[in-house]
């Protein structure tokens, strides 16, 4: 029995010595950060997010782990982010249509004010794409073909689904819409011609250079600098456009130290050679930097504008 007591005493001693190394509570970061991506691995958000995580890791000196929570155009990721009881170690990188649009048309368990928008880093590049093998190429040709044939469309977000449903109704298309987990799920469906056309949040950049995929129209307000010849939906006479920014989002009310640290890391990333190179040259997204104040305004402005359109 004395032997046992001795062993117990020694291990308690050893543990006491180990406990000395514990971190202070008011420091940030006290551990690795988690970056949430609301789409499948392999899509454009994921590709940019992983480089961003890498760059932030160098800046902050702690690991930044990327986790994918695909589903419902990021609504899945926002729902779990809103419910997070966290001290600023988890943030999301991605577009905001799940906030500026989705809550208007369906029940979700979060609202704009549940989050803070720390920095906008890239301008959204939403597009309608189709396979190069299809008998149609431009958006007008898709519509024309669809007036005689039933069509299939792969959605990724509630917003693109709503837009395409509205277009289909105007033009009298017989359209069925399938969900995908993100660009990486969309691409095989389009390239395998399982669907006739699809929404792409940016993944098209991987497939247009090889000529496998063609962009029928952009959903953004202005043409993409990377595809100057492709028209926008607005130019084609439809009153819909998506204004979106790939943004760093955190649950509202994180500690000040965490907020400042993340903003500084984001700002550094927006100037980092590696992030700019990947974002602009591999995914064809223009890098921007919008600070928190500007982003908070933008989110609410876009939301209000969308509500106006939907109210009609």
């Amino acid at each position: 029995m004395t032997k046992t007591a001795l062993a117990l005493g020694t291990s308690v001693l050893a543990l006491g010595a180990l406990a000395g190394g514990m971190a202070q509570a008011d420091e940030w970061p006290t551990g690795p950060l988690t970056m949430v991506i609301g789409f499948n691995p392999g899509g454009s958000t994921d590709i940019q997010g992983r480089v961003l995580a890498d760059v932030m890791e160098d800046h902050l000196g702690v690991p930044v782990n990327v986790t994918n929570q695909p589903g419902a155009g990021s609504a899945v990721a926002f729902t779990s982010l809103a419910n997070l009881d966290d001290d600023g170690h988890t943030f999301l990188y991605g577009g905001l249509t799940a906030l500026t649009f989705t809550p208007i048309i369906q029940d979700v368990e979060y609202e704009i004010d549940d989050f803070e928008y720390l920095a906008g880093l890239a301008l959204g590049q939403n597009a309608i794409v189709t396979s190069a093998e299809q008998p149609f190429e431009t958006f007008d040709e898709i519509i024309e073909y669809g007036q005689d044939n039933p069509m299939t469309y792969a959605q990724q977000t509630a917003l693109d689904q709503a837009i395409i449903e509205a277009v289909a109704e105007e033009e009298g298309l017989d359209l069925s819409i399938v969900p995908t987990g993100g660009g990486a799920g969309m691409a095989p469906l389009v390239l395998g011609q399982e669907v006739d056309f699809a929404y792409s949040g940016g993944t098209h950049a991987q497939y247009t250079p090889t000529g496998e995929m063609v962009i029928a129209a952009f959903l953004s307000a202005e043409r993409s600098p990377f595809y100057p010849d492709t028209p926008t939906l607005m130019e084609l006479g439809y009153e819909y456009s998506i204004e979106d920014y790939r943004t760093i989002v955190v649950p509202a009310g994180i500690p000040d130290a965490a907020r400042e640290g993340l903003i500084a890391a984001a700002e550094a990333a927006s100037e980092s050679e590696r992030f700019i190179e990947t974002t602009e040259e591999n995914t064809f997204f223009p890098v921007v930097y919008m600070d928190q104040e500007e982003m908070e305004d933008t989110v609410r402005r876009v939301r209000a504008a969308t509500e106006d359109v939907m109210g009609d």
Partner: protein
Amino acid sequence: MIGASIQEALTLNALIGIGGGVFMGYVIGVIPGLSRSVAIAIAIPLTFYMSPLIAISFLIGLSKGTAAGSAVSAILLNAPGEASSAATALDGYPLAKSGKPKTALQVGLVASVAGDIMATIILIFVAIPFARVALMFGPYEMAAILAFALVFIAGLSGGNIFKGLAAGGLGIILGTIGLDPQTGLPRLTFGYTQLMDGMPLIAVAIGTLALSEMFIQSEKLRYERETMAVKLEHRADDHITVPIMRRIMPTILRGTGIGTFVGALPGLGPSVGSWMSYGVAQKVSRTPEKFGKGEPQGIAASESADNAVIPAALIPLFGLGIPGNVSAALLVGAFAIHGITVGPLLLRDEPELLYSIFAGMIVASIFMLILGWFGLMIFAQITRVPPHVVIPIVIFFCLGGILLQGYGTFGLVILMGFALLGYLMKKYDYSFVTFLVAFIITPMLELNLRQSIILSRGEWSILLDRPIAVFFILCTLAALVILAQRTLQGSRQIETAPGE
């Protein structure tokens, strides 16, 4: 490009990852009672912080190492570290007891490494064309193939297809927990925000595979106490010779063939492969009476097939994205953690990574040979670690793995629940392999099913244009009928046997 991929696999970090994986696998394989899936389940949290290539090489090295290591305890202790090495013990232990433990170990090692390398090469040459074909599969084909794989695994991994299907059903239900992929609304989360990302895979895997196994092992301690290992001594005539090599070579080739075939079919796993290979070797031998009394061919047959199964099980994984056994299913989870969707798309989108993984697998085989050859004495010592010391430490690391992932007390409670479930499933012979594979592939199955239903607009006639999907649907039905019949007839034989 392939040259660059091979270089990638030969960087120092990658080599450390692979070597570390093989070494850890060897040690765990040698310890009786710690199996491959226990090793992978506990190691997944470790890989979280490695780069994808190193993590995957580490895990593959780990599973290869356990297969080679389990032969050591089978030969020296007559207690296989892994069920798949049970056939090895039949001849390995008698040979070791007759004063030639080193010969037995070396025969086992040579057979393991040879089987492993050959099967890896077959994997490389089969998986790539497979993936090319599979790239043309759409949602109908994928949904049909997934359903077929599930029925097949349910029928073959346990023996009783109804118990397998019940386990698979539970896996599917648990796999649908989380936020609905189409609407983002919670489904079956019972109001727990922690369940919104779904049941945490790490807790499910560590609970059903590792922790439950520790409970079973500790229960066994009541009935079995320490066994004595055969000691390794330096004897001049105790080593593998050229005539022995020549004798076992044909056996190894045959064993590799059987192992590769069995491994490529979902649900069968290494035990079936090694027993089948042992049986065939005995049947074709001119001296079948020597089997079971220390015949090197017996060791070679069992070990070559056992090791060939591991790379072969990756054929459906890389070719179709379907995990055929528990280790492959856990690899899917590990790949997902690193942002890689395993399957045919890997070949198109990240061929460099795929070739690097293949190169890493060959490197792992070579490490296995070196470690096994020069480390025999050390590994022989590890067989003397008593199981009752291992159990508390493994339990400690199970708890640690959950906490490392930040799941907290909630994760621990879930872990405990799954440990209990795994314990009951193992006790009552419900296939936990089916359960785990079903759990992991459910999101994929559901998405493909959903897409099929929407794209077809509910018209069955669309299947007429889909011969491959129809083929797999028919296969699913045929497998269901045949395997159910097999289970029902099997029971009659048992009932007519005296006793029970």
